[in-house]
């Protein structure tokens, strides 16, 4: 069950979840991360459906970290559905994935991704990237206002 958080990580690889959480744990944004293990769970959480039916749907993460290769509903489809929903379409979405293949970059930006970050192999670099991401998206960036009408 996802607990509400300021940052929603959508990632199926347990190692990657662990390492991403560890990377953020080394930053000041440690306790603000919720994790969805596949695309379907991410959508249910955001739309407050399925197991998340009772959740207050007006409470949304400040930013979504989205992997592209996901079981059930893949990352690009999650992105498409978020952008198609009037209520959640303004959430900033960062693609956080293994590759920097041109086709992924193009498809992600075409579907409205706000940012595209390739997870580096070097963990020290990854911690650095996590810190910059947190700083920018949770501190520097001005999120869409909650009161805004869809």
């Amino acid at each position, binding site marked *: 069950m996802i607990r509400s958080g300021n940052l929603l990580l959508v990632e199926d*690889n347990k*190692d*990657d979840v662990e*390492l991403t959480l*560890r990377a953020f744990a080394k930053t000041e944004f440690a306790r603000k991360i919720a994790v969805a293990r596949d695309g379907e769970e991410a959508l249910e959480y955001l739309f407050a459906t399925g197991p998340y039916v009772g959740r207050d749907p007006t409470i949304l993460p400040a930013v979504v970290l989205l992997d*592209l*290769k996901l079981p059930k509903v893949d990352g690009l489809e999650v992105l498409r559905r978020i952008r198609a929903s009037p209520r959640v379409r303004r959430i900033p979405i960062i693609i956080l*994935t*293994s*590759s*920097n*293949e*041109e*086709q992924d970059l193009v498809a992600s930006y075409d579907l409205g991704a706000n940012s595209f970050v390739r*997870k*580096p*192999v*070097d*963990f*020290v670099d*990854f911690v650095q990237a996590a810190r910059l991401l947190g700083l920018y998206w949770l501190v520097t960036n001005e999120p869409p206002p909650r009161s805004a009408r869809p």
Partner: protein
Amino acid sequence: MTPNVLIVDDSLTVRMDLADAFEAAGFHSLPCATATQARAALAANVVSLAILDVLLPDADGVELMMELRAHPAMASVPIVMLSTEAEIKHRIRGLQTGADDYVGKPYETSYVVSRARELLRDHQRLPTQTATVLVIDDSRTFCEQLRRAFEQAGYGVMTASSGEQGLRMASSHRPMAIVVDGVMPGIDGATVIRTIRLDAALRGTPCVLLTASDDREAELRALDAGADAFVRKEQDLQVVLARLAAVLRSAKTERPDADTLLGPKRVLAVDDSATYVNELAAALRGDGYDVIIAQSGEEAIEMLAVQQVDCVLLDLVMPGLGGKETCRRIKTSPVVRDIPLIMVTAVEDRAAMIEGLGIGADDFISKSSEFEVLKARVRAQIRRKQFEDEHRRIREELLRSELDAAEARAARQVAEAKAALTDELERKNKELEAFSYSVSHDLRAPLRSIDGFSQAVLEDHFENLDEMGRDYLQRVRAAAQRMGQLIDDLLLLSRVSRAGLHRRPVNISNIARTVVDELRRKDPQRSIEFVLQEDVIINADEGLLRVVFDNILENAWKFTRKTPTPHIEFGVIERDAHTVLFVRDNGAGFNMAYANKLFGPFQRLHSEDDFPGTGIGLATVHRIVDRHGGRVWAEGEVGRGATVFFTIPFETGDPK
């Protein structure tokens, strides 16, 4: 609108006779007695057709014709020359300079009118566009002279200075006509024409051969090669122009092979005896034939080179070339050998008859025969020729349609094979892309775990590990990172092979500067002197060239690490007429014995400890340069530095 026919003849009888005949045939006639009157009539009227006498009181008819031809409105109007002159020279001169037909006096009025009608009908089928002429001559001066003359006459002109170039231009530009010099180094004029005639797309192009000689053999050879006409170089440029206009007209109108049996026929009578030949001509003219008289074999051959006839009557015994030799020459020339040829002789000689028929004469007749017999023979021969033509035409059409079908079949097969190959290639490319994609995603994920958790152990259990344990974990991390780099480099190599090539002018100097600026930013403690040649502009794919400079400059940066005063230079030199780009450093260098190994993947000349790297960078550079159709190589010396050279030719290559 009634077409105007200009009739210029100083004889009142001729003028009235022809004027009546043309009026009756639905023309409006403009009779003139002198060249001066003709000029005035032309200034006031639009003329569709002109009949010109060769001899005028105030001018030479041929000169008047050339003057008319120079007049834009008259340049392509059919002109028929009339002459009482028995001299064949005039006829040849008239036809060579642009007359469409030539009728000897005394003429048959109906013949003149029907020929005029035919010419007019052909003429009206002409498209009015400007014709482009290809001039092939190794003399630049003559080429330019012709260009000026042709351009003034309203033609478009291309020039080529050799047969090879001419053929290339002919196939790429499809000129309306070709004027080619007979004698050139390399491929000569006759060969050019022969080659043109063998090319399916070009074989219909009219070709005029320029000859320097007045050797009749050469002229016949030119016609054999398929020339539509030849012009001697010493002749006036006006003559060249006129011949060109004539071949363009006849090429476009291309009269069908099978003329009607009832149409006017032209007979070439060759005999050194004026009395006999004039009598013969009179008899044939009475039957409506146009008779051309030649008094020697040489004249006959020259005549045949400028005008097709329907039948040749050839005297056996003549001074000079002689009947037999003339017959042999006519019958061995592919262009004229099909014309029925009747040998005429005073002697009833069985042996001569057999010999004459042996060398190709179609019939043999004695001078003592009555003219009626001779006329019957002429009719028979012409008829036979027409049936043969008709048969040949049908055979050729059949053959052509079979050929066309075979060509279409072959083209289809080629297209199918090509499509299959393209499909196969696309499938392979897709497979490769899918493969790269999963390599990119799936191979890197475990490496992140290996590196990340090794780092986690180092951080969380630092105290529990001894020196060796920490070192081993560092080695695990280093190996994982190195493998990550290898995967990235291999993916890049694969990507530059598949990516489209988008060439445009690129300022290479700016790329080099950007790359060095980035290297400086990443490695600020190093101070390297970088010398750059400004504004080197190359037509290339900018993204791929960036990869080239990333690799080469990164190498230079890396290999000067141990040099006390590092120096890197980018510039351009000219070598063997090629523009060669280079990046030079004064770093570790390499042993030239291994120069050929540098550009293969995974080839390294330095230990990982000394200078880390994957060995894929220069292979990627090689692939990119190769895709631009260029060449890359390196020169170096151990301890003295290395220079990488490469060429990017303008718009060639990319075999992909």
